[in-house]
């Protein structure tokens, strides 16, 4: 059964009307996802036992007339960098092909406590490093809209699962655009919340000062509802924020007249013309809804990618040191000494992009280079964050493209790392500043390739971001 038209609310209404049971829905969702998977390779692992156990709990509550959790019975796909107890979690890496985590991520616990039904784990770039999903050790994901093209990355499987209608909701992770860019390429809604809004306990660490967990769904409303469940302080993650979580969905459905929206000049340079036209058309919709649109500047945007590829790789080189052949399932068979165990396990286990980033990160942190690279990048990061702080003195939200171009062809950029990195030019600054940002679909090119409108707001002001995106989505539907 294609879940494409279903929402959290419609499933809840159907369950309460006894149109189907949560178990029936889970079985149909699993069957459909398994049947469709050869077309996209969006899933790496299905979790029928876990899904049916969760669905059974929901059905028991319905039978007993008890109150249902906010995600009751909703089929959800999880990016395979988020650990699930007793369900294989590969991180898209050969190194973790057989890794069965002994615990659940906090986001997973919260989803299941809310009645969510986890149907499987989605494909992604290895350790979330990539912009096309071509760096997965288990083969690339194909874009459900255009199978010869990439779904974006690194959360390509999660975006594809929602676009394909095999899951109503999905979780992804975003370090440099890995939720928004695949959401835009696949024509779904994807949210990167404020840094610290969602606990990363159980998210496999890539770049700790930048990593986020966030939701995918067809609609802004469903993204907001999923964020509601996973957001909030968690003592298992010291970086999770104390700020109270407001009622996101209650803030939706209204108008946005009088809101000030900034268009950063730097986000409209080097943009493919069709993408630019669609973004301008979306901005016209915001104007019709009564927003006051202003030109703004984010002058340090051109330095974002260089900054990111120093900070992210430096942190990654440290975080990935743990895959050394001792604890995580894989050890080189040809290693005879301890040193060979480390070196051969890592050489055989990591893919090319992971090695490239480990090498770059190790280089920029190595003796004599720290000030020139890592410290320099942290200073430029301050300038990028300051750009946003100054912009938000003038406007309530910022709008622009998610990516300079729509989904590209498989293999098109795979041999040119710098060209691949440039596809993240408009998403990386939001991660560096730590502000909430999202992608909402805003039409398609003549070839039918989806384009995403990006909306960014102040720290912890997800409400304004959702209000703009929701008003736009209702007006454009």
């Amino acid at each position, binding site marked *: 059964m294609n879940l494409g038209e279903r929402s959290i609310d419609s499933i809840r209404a159907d369950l309460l009307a006894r149109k189907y049971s949560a178990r029936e829905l889970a079985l149909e969702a699993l069957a459909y996802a398994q049947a469709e998977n050869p077309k996209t390779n969006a899933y790496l692992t299905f979790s029928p036992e876990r899904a049916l156990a969760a669905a059974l709990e929901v059905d028991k509550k319905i039978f007993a007339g008890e109150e249902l959790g906010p995600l009751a019975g909703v089929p959800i796909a999880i990016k395979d960098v988020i650990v699930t107890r007793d369900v294989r979690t590969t991180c898209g890496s050969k190194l973790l092909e057989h890794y069965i985590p002994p615990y659940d991520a906090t986001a997973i616990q919260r989803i299941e406590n809310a009645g969510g039904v986890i149907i499987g784990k989605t494909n992604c770039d290895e350790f979330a490093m990539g912009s096309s999903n071509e760096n997965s050790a288990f083969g690339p994901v194909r874009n459900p809209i255009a199978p010869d093209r990439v779904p974006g990355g690194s959360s390509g499987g999660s975006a594809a699962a929602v676009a394909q209608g095999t899951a109503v909701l999905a979780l992804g992770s975003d370090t440099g655009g890995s939720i928004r860019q695949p959401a835009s390429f696949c024509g779904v809604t994807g949210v990167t919340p404020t840094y610290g809004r969602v606990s990363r306990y159980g998210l496999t660490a890539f770049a700790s000062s930048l990593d986020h967990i966030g939701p995918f769904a067809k609609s802004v409303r469903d993204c907001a509802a999923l964020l509601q469940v996973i957001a909030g302080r968690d003592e298992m993650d010291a970086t999770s*924020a104390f700020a109270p979580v407001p009622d996101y969905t209650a803030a939706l459905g209204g108008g946005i007249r009088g809101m000030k929206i900034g268009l950063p000049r730097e986000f409209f340079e080097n943009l493919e013309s069709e993408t630019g036209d669609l973004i301008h058309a979306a901005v016209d919709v915001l104007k019709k809804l009564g927003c006051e649109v202003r030109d703004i500047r984010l002058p*340090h945007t051109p330095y974002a990618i260089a900054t990111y590829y120093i900070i992210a790789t430096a942190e990654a080189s440290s975080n990935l040191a743990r895959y050394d052949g001792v*604890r995580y399932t894989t050890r080189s068979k040809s290693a005879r000494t301890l040193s060979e165990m480390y070196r051969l396990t890592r050489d055989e286990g990591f893919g090319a992009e992971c090695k*490239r980033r480990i090498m770059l990160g190790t280089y920029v942190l190595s003796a004599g280079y720290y000030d020139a690279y890592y410290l*320099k990048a942290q200073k430029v*990061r301050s300038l990028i964050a300051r750009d946003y702080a100054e912009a938000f003195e003038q406007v309530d939200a910022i709008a622009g493209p998610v990516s300079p171009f729509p989904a590209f062809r498989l293999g098109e950029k795979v041999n040119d790392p710098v060209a691949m990195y440039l596809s993240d030019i408009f998403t990386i600054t939001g991660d560096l500043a730590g502000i909430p940002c999202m992608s909402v679909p805003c039409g398609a090119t003549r070839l039918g390739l989806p384009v995403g409108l990006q909306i960014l707001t102040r720290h912890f002001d997800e409400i304004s971001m959702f209000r703009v995106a929701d008003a736009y989505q209702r007006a454009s539907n």
Partner: protein
Amino acid sequence: MKLTEEQVRNVADLANLALTDAEIGRMRRDLEDILTYIEKLNELDTSGVEPMAQVLYPAGETATLREDRERPPLGVPAALKNAPAAGAGYFKVPKVIER
């Protein structure tokens, strides 16, 4: 930005990666391209700018300290379950000290 293969091998050593000769050549070219691109940051004068190591928001100095209380640990069998080699409650690795 130019790198020698020697430098690349040195970094691979630091990173505990046993790269093959073919990988070293490719890596040298890729790192040169990326480092050349990164030199862009030198256009900016950052003297007097504080480095940003983390996204920070207002909170009390001890806000992130949790209550010190006993909690059940993961347990040895669960912790060792994914080990490529284990025995007697420990991770096993190749012999480090020769007689």
